[in-house]
């Protein structure tokens, strides 16, 4: 069938690639595909069970909760480098590979794993635009059998400037040195509704701006074009002349903001890994409402 669609302008192997790009490169020997699905605890979905039922051919499952720092009481904090190395080795993901990450939602937790790879100094990683839903909607092939990976060496060089801890965020909030951007839904940001995690206060980090990650997406779950991404940031009152710190409920959807910032060429961004799961917990950290 001749395609009337113009060639995609999406494809950038360091940020985002289209389903068409992935289909074309699926057989490349140096390509690794990861299913990085993660569902909110309340959704009742099991990302691993869905992976085992159907995934893009050759995809390995990246378990965000498992490949995290279990020494922390906070949910899925970035893994220590040695743990990341051991898991990637076992999954057969290593040096010289182009990685493509997708999820079962469309464009959600895959961005977090994209960010994790960059944190580990691995830049050749892209999110699949529109994820598994788009892949399926286009009638593309899936399989239910997991691949048998072979050990592969991976070199890691942790990029500490890509992550911020609570002290750094508190300082940025107080001094206004960075623009904090919060990806949670508007009602959670304003403090009108209770947080889904029990025991957390409602509201947001003083001085932060709200840009719900859904506003970065098209109705089909693909990421908006860069021109519209920039518009979304500006319409949210985000000051792009400052370095950015992205945040959300637990550091998953904040990575969608990070990906969008990278897409519009705003490279000076870091992610607040503790996010609201941490900030909402401590009474001595200030909270703004409205």
């Amino acid at each position, binding site marked *: 069938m001749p395609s009337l669609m*113009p*060639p*995609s*302008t*999406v494809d*950038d192997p360091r940020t985002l690639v289209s389903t068409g790009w992935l289909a074309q490169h699926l057989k490349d020997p140096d390509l690794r595909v990861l299913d990085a699905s993660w569902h909110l605890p309340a959704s009742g979905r099991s990302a691993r069970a869905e992976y085992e039922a159907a995934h893009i051919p050759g995809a390995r499952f990246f378990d965000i909760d498992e490949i995290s720092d279990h020494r922390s009481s906070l949910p899925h904090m970035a893994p220590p480098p040695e743990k990341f190395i051991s898991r990637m080795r076992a999954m057969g993901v290593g040096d010289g590979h182009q990685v493509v990450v997708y999820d079962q939602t469309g464009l959600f937790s895959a961005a977090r794993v994209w960010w994790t790879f960059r944190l580990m100094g691995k830049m050749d990683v892209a999110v699949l635009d529109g994820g598994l839903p788009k892949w399926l909607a286009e009638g593309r092939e899936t399989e239910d059998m997991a691949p048998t990976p072979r050990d592969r060496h991976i070199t890691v060089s942790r990029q500490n400037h890509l992550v911020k801890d609570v002290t750094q965020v508190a300082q940025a909030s107080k001094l206004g040195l960075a623009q904090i951007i919060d990806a949670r839904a508007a009602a959670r940001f304003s403090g009108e509704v209770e947080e889904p995690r029990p025991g957390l206060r409602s509201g947001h980090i003083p001085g932060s701006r709200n840009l719900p990650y859904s506003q970065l997406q098209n109705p089909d779950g693909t990421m908006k*074009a*860069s*021109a*519209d991404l*920039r*518009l979304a940031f*500006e*319409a949210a009152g985000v000051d*792009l*002349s400052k370095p950015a710190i992205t945040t959300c409920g637990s550091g998953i959807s904040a990575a969608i903001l990070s990906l969008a910032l990278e*897409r*519009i*060429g*705003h490279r000076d961004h870091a992610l607040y890994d503790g996010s609201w799961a941490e900030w909402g917990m401590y009474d001595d950290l200030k909270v703004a409402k409205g």
Partner: protein
Amino acid sequence: MLETLVPQPQDKILSLIQMYRDDPRTGKIDLGLGVYKDATGLTPVMRAVKTAERQLWETETTKTYTGLAGEPAFHAALSGLILGDTVTSDRIAAVATPGGTGAIRQAFELVRMASPGAKVWLSDPTWPNHPSILRYLGMEVATYRYFDETTRGVDFGGMMHDLGKVAPGDVVLLHGCCHNPTGANLTLPEWAAVADMLVAKGAVPLVDLAYQGFGDGLEADAAGTRLIAARCPEVLVAASCSKNFGIYRERTGLLMALGEASRKGVVQGNLAYLNRQNFSFPPDHGARLVTMILTDPMLRADWMAELEAVRRSMLGLRTALAAALQAAAGSDRFGFLAAHRGMFSRLGATEMQVERLRAEHGIYMVSDSRLNIAGLNAGSVPVLAQAILDVGI
């Protein structure tokens, strides 16, 4: 034959330069001509340009003609810098032109050829060459409100009201960033509203992008153009490399016509035809340097760093001038200077006040009170601030 010619009115800016040169006073300040100058008053060749020139001198083996439309590699490199990932290459027809003025001229000629009755709408005020070239070509000109003389910001309400009167097929010229001469610019949400209005009216935007990288940064300065390109079915973009590469005399520019992919071949042929009629082949040297810089990661990074330093120094001078005026005047009424972007700001002074600045203080600016921020330095900022207050602006 020649005896029938009448003298042309002298170019205001060029006669200003002459007056400045003839002025014997030490400490005179030139804020007239639209050229970037560093703190020592020089317009240096950028490091990456020098390096590229050296490489080119070593490797260039021929000076034979380039393509009528210029080199496709130049089109690709510069359109990438301007449009990012907004538009697929199969929608972009492009020609290299002699500078940004050449791109504007070819854009107007393309409009005249494709749509002879089309009116071209210009911001009030705009760069004087826009109406001047249009009049020379015998094309119809209209203006839309743009500058609010009171706030010295954009009169967005007036602008949208006037754009509401645009007819289908009319062309609306927009300054992509760093509006010349006012320095007042649209916000991105305002760009979106303008794009929607032009789509609704069936008008064709012509974006003049002469200062990418001089305002809020390379990406931010292209954001309005990209939004227009993403939303409007047909768009013309006239770009200049004079300022952001500092290659004024090399005459390096690009005209892009974005439209339906199926029409690209015909549009491309017509653009090449226009080049052929006007000057055959476009200048190549500057275009080649730009291509080398944009496609070599080391050169590109160095160029971006130097351009960013230029941008920051102008921003610093703006902020310093606004702060000096705030301190001296004891009010915020000059805050607009810090909000403006690019090389220019319109002070909003009368011609008499501008003349007094020249006569009494040796400060030269265009009579519409456009001042070139890059003409300042740390020493002249307080002098200008005091002079502005002395003449009662």
